[in-house]
Structures are given as C-alpha cells and as structure tokens.
C-alpha cells in the first residue's frame, strides 16, 4: 500500500531539489558578504570529479569521497578567493565565470583522468550502496512493503533532506552570530565595516570558501546520485541555473534561494512543455526580476508579513 504511493520518479525529483537547494545556499552564502560568484558550476565540478575519481579508482567509501570533494573545492575556493578579493563587483563575477570555463576546459581535455567530454560513468551510487548495506544487515525492503528501487530512492531522499536541514540550521545559526553580522556589514558598507575593526579580507575569503565548499559538496552528491557525470553538467548553463535560484527566489534572505532552487527545479517537471523553453523563460525571469523586483520573490518585508498573518490568524481563531 505504502508502495503504491511512493513513486520513484517523484522521489528522484525530490532529490534533485535537495541538491539544488545546496547549490542555492552556496550562492546565497557568497552573496551574503556582497560577492557575486559565477564559479559555482566550476566548484561543483571539482567536488563531483574529486569524489567520483576517489570512489572509482581507490574504492573509498562514498562518504569519504563526498567530504574530500567538498574539501578540495573549498581549498581551491580559498586559492581563487584570496587573489580575487582585489576584485569587486562585476570583476569578481567575470573572474569566477572565467574560472568556471577554465575548469570545464580542463575536464574536457585531461582525458587520461577525466575521460574527456564523454565523462565518468560507473560512479558508486548512494542508493545501491545503501541497498547492499541493508541486505548485508539482513533487512529486506519487502518487509515494509517497498520494492527495491522505491526503497533506494526513498533512502537517498531522506539522507539529502537530513543534510539540507543540517546545512540550513548551520547557516541560520551562523547568520545570527558575530560572523554573520560581519558578512552583512561588509555587504552593506565595506569601508564602514573595516572601520569597525572587521578584517574584511578574512571574512570575504571565509564566505567565498564556504560557498565553494557547498558547491563542491552538492557536486559530489550529484555524482553519487546520478552515477554518471560529464563536463557538460558543470557548464556556464549550470552557473546560470544556480544564479537564478538566488535571483528569482531572493538573494537577501536564506529562504529566498531555498525557495528559488525548489521552485525552479519543480517548474520544468510540473509543466512539461516548459522544459523545451526553459532557458527562454529563465532569461525573461532574470530580466523581469531585475526590473521589477531585484531583491527576488522572498524578501524581509514578505517574511515579516507572513509572520504577521500567522499571528493575526491566531488572534482571529480566538475571536
């Protein structure tokens, strides 16, 4: 009975939403200190390839690969971040865009390791490993009325949901702390922030590296959910996808990019005809958002209003 309700296709879409939310968070955290990075696709690729190669070639467990992928992306993020700090605004955006393209060109050309534009296949999948693990421990999905593939997709989604909750919790806590205040101060007025004793170099590199880690982490998860990756997965279009999560959903509050990632992932799935015109629509969305609502759909006043309506409705029920 439970089995009929759980459609593997929906579960997989759910997993992609979760991965894209992590990507949305990665651009949010970088923007929270006022930096626009278009390199997320590049960092995502680094994470994906690092983890895939480690697990394929050295038989390392997936979890080790994923962590290594995130860390390598983070280290490269620091290496790119420190010099890029001399750049502001649009220059940083272009330099990171250039970085993403260089990454892609390397992935295509370093054939002996990356298999070039064909990409890597046979990457260990989280779902299969889980299934193997549960079999070894004597548990059968059938005992709770699930087919194997249902069980697999369900478990993957559950793991990703838990990861997302932890990440969002982490970032919200950080926002409310001294570090988050420093990020926000730098975003609003860099000179004033510096005059208040904030080491802007440190905090900008910190937020840039956090964004890189998150992108790399999402990339590694992507590799182990898909089982197959190629350089085309980490192209300029991916960077635009990620950008639109924050721009459409809202770049000022964490819920903005979460909403943006979820909405933009669902949209082409729900409206099939849209997927053909997807980038046409994305293009229009970017232009229209900038003209009419540059802060994105979700902003601080909207959140406050939502809280207010909640409070009001409580009172209302009393009456």
């Amino acid at each position, binding site marked *: 009975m439970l089995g009929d309700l759980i459609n593997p296709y929906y579960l997989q879409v759910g997993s992609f939403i979760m991965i894209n939310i992590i990507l949305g968070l990665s651009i949010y955290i970088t923007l929270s200190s006022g930096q626009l990075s278009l390199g997320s696709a590049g960092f995502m690729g680094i994470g994906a390839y690092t983890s895939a190669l480690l697990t394929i070639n050295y038989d390392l467990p997936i979890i080790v690969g994923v962590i290594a992928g995130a860390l390598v992306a983070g280290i490269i993020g620091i290496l790119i971040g420190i010099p890029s700090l001399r750049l502001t605004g649009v220059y940083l955006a272009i330099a990171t865009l250039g970085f993403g393209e260089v990454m892609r060109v390397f992935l295509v050309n370093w054939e002996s390791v990356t298999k070039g534009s064909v990409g890597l296949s046979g990457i260990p999948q989280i779902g299969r490993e889980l299934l193997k693990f549960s079999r070894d421990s004597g548990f059968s999905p059938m005992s709770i009325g699930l087919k194997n593939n249902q069980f697999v997709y369900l478990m993957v989604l559950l793991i990703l949901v838990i990861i997302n909750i932890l990440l969002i919790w982490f970032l919200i806590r950080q926002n409310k702390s001294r570090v988050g205040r420093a990020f926000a*101060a730098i975003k609003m007025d860099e000179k004033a922030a510096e005059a208040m004793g904030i*080491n802007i170099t440190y905090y900008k590199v910190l937020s840039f590296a956090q964004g890189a880690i998150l992108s790399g982490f999402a990339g590694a998860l992507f590799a182990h959910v898909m089982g197959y990756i190629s350089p085309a997965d980490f192209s300029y279009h991916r960077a635009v996808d990620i950008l639109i999560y924050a721009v459409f959903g809202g770049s000022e509050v964490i819920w903005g990019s979460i909403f943006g990632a979820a909405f933009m992932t669902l949209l082409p799935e729900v409206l099939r005809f849209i997927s053909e015109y997807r980038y046409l629509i994305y293009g229009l969305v970017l232009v229209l958002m900038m003209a009419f609502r540059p802060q994105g759909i979700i902003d601080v006043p909207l959140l406050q209003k939502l809280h207010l309506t909640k409070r009001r409705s409580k009172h209302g029920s009393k009456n």
Partner: protein
Amino acid sequence: MVLKINNVSKNFGGISALTDISFSINKGEIFGLIGPNGAGKTTMFNCITSIFPPSSGEILFLDENITGIKPHKITNKGICRTFQNIRLFSQMSVLENVLVGGHSQSHSGVFSGVFRTKSQRNEEEKLRSTARELLELVGLSEFEDAVAENLAYGQQRRLEIARALASDPKLLLLDEPAAGMNDTETADLYYLIKKVQERGVTTLLIEHDMPLVMRLCDRITVLNFGKKLAEGTPEEIQNNQEVIEAYLGSEGDDDIA
C-alpha cells in the same frame, strides 16, 4: 599623550591635500580640528584610520607607530571613527549596528557561533548589554529594533557615535557630528560628547558649528589649504588674526565668533 601626528603629508596625484602637519592630543582631551571646506580635515581622519596611508610622516598612537597599518587593526588598537556622510549599515536594526561596532571586542568564530558554546553565549550577552547601555547613552533605547535607515538624521548621527563607542575606543574621531542637526539636537550632542569625555575617551572632533567647537574643545588646531594655520585654546584661536582672515576669506557660513 594619546595621539601624536608627526609631519604628516598626503598627496593625491600631485595635489597635496595635507602638508607637513603635526599636532598631538593629550589623554582625556576634546581636541578640535577646524578649517574651511577643503582644508584637509577629513583627509587627516582618513590618514589616521589608514583608509589611505599618509604620503610621508608618521602617526603615533599611545607611543606606537600605526602609520599605514590595516584599517581594521587601527580599530582593534583603540581608534574608532564616525563618518561625515553617515555610513550606517542601513538595513540592519539599530541594535545590530552597535553589535557590529563591538566586533573588535569579541572573538567567537564560525564554530562557536553556530554551536553556541558557553563562552560564545557569554560574549554575546556582554555585547548586547554593552550595546543597550550605549544606546541609552545616546538616547536611542526605544529604537533598538528599528531599521537604521528609518531613523531621523540626527538620530543616525548619534547611532554612529554609539556604534563607534562599542569598539571601546581610547580615541574617538567624530567627523562633523552636528552637521544637519537643529539647535536642540546640537545641544544634546554637546552633552553627549561631554559624557563620552567623562567615560575617559579622548575625542578628536571635526566640526563646522563654531559655538559648539568653542564650548567643547580643550584645544583646537586650524587647517587651511592642507596646512596648519594655528593651534591653541578656543580663546587663542578666536583671537588669532590669521585664523579670522582665513575664515573671512572663505564662505561666510563658518563664522568663527
């Protein structure tokens, strides 16, 4: 001696904004820096706070050479400033602005901030109570949760002072704090600066409101065209022929008497 300026000059692409300026400020003083527009007063502030380092000369703070070190380190050593064209974190709340001011007084990082360790919670509590105390000092307690950009002009200026005080400075640099204030607000500002002095903070003040400067300051240095014109007590300055001429020669809005 809190601050000692030794022969500081600053050039911008061949144009000299400051030429060979020297003065020093004693502990607990309110020291005025006045002069007609374009005399180099804000440039002096920018040199002291290292927004740009001087072209030559040196700046000593508590006998330590701080010339050209990073701006945030200047603040950590105990110098904090306000800005002539108010530079609050406009979308933050009033309280948050002061909390950011307390950045140099706190140390918690990503880990302790996220997991709220005991020391982090203590630190945050201390920051908040200091911030609230400072808001009370500048008379903004009731606006704690207001968004900074929604404050009235005079209130924004006072918030900047509270934010600067949150870094627990030994030397406070105020850049035209009375600009745009009405008479009542200016009167309040007088008492505020006096109260700051009672807290043991030394103040370096740039101001165009001459009655305020003359009443507040213990000593004054006058700049004109990037050069030092005179230094002395308010009385001496008011009677200095050169100073009077410099002011008469400029636009009339800065009447010295």
